[in-house]
């Protein structure tokens, strides 16, 4: 009995000691982690619309059953940009993408947040050259071609699947923004 008690006390003491230390560390770090996460997200959004003073969540939507959001970026009271997070179904992963448009829904920029496509192939979607192609495009122009093109999007050779995934994700996002903010789907 005494033996048993000793065991329990011994274990319990370690448990409590560890618990105390852990709680302390957790208390210290959890806010840091939380803040860092918020900051990261804010920074990512801010990058999409640097002039904006305030970026608000305007709604949520689903693509490939993945949760996404869209935002209104305001300077003063004026909406200067719409931003949407979206998903691409890539070669070996779902690609998380951010798209921003100006108020008349022309793409301002896109950014790749995360993916795990093949290094050296699919990961070239992160390259500036590829992302830049989307700038200034409207819904109709967001289409992938495997040949050289100015007004559409040109696929990265050897990574058609990843390129198409990004293009399709962006297109869905712009389509959504068109539905929410556009004047009918086919504007002019």
């Amino acid at each position, binding site marked *: 009995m005494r033996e048993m008690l000793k065991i329990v006390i011994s274990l319990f003491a370690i448990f409590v000691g*560890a618990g105390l230390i*852990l709680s302390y560390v*957790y208390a210290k770090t*959890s806010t840091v982690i939380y803040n860092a996460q918020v900051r990261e997200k804010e920074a990512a959004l801010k990058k999409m619309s640097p002039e904006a003073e305030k970026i608000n969540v305007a709604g949520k939507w689903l693509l490939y059953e993945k949760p996404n959001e869209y935002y209104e970026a305001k300077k003063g009271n004026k909406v200067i940009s719409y931003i949407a997070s979206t998903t691409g*179904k*890539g*070669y*070996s*992963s*779902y690609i998380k993408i951010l798209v921003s448009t100006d108020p008349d829904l022309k793409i301002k920029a896109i950014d790749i947040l995360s993916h795990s496509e093949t290094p050296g192939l699919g990961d070239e979607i992160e390259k500036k050259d590829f992302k830049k192609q989307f700038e200034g495009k409207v819904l109709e122009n967001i289409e992938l071609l495997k040949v050289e093109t100015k007004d559409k999007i040109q696929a990265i050779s050897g990574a058609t699947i990843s390129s198409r995934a990004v293009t399709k994700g962006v297109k869905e996002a712009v389509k959504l923004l068109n539905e929410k903010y556009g004047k009918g789907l086919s504007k002019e």
Partner: protein
Amino acid sequence: MLEDIGIIFIASALINNFVFSRYLGLCIFFGVTKRMETAIGMSITFTSVMVISAALSWLVYYIIMIPLNLGFLKIVIFIGIVSGFVQAADTIMKKVTPGLYYKLGIYLALIVTNCIILAVPLINASEKYNLLQSLTFGLGAGAGFSLALVIMASIRERLELADVPKSFEGLPISFVLTGLIALAFLGFSGMIPL
């Protein structure tokens, strides 16, 4: 729903095979594949423990830890669950099915300090899988691990008779071999985006 389950299973067993693409359970993988018999014993034991501890951890995580905001203790608690369960299984098997215990008991002892068992609940938690998904993941991972063990054991049996350069005998050649199998398993990549 069903498709979802299928995808989790295939992905965890083949595409993201614990050994060949996630690098988990390597100590055991190299340790027990010298003989087919041990590899099979290990497969059975591991798969069952993985499935059951996936379920137990899920229950504890979502019924106790999340409501109490104790998510940060998951490492401590999961390893507690795994070792507690293994201890219990050990005792129960010894009493109830001594025959089976005699066969598989030795492997049980190896399990407690093994990363692959702990990885299942941790991944389940970080992927926010529901109970069925967690079970499927545990089963898929177990099946994939078993597949890896059995293939490896059969190849190593043949390799024992081969004329491997001295410096490479044993572990080094096993690593190279695993690399080659992993290379072949790349054939499954790109099948399902994860």
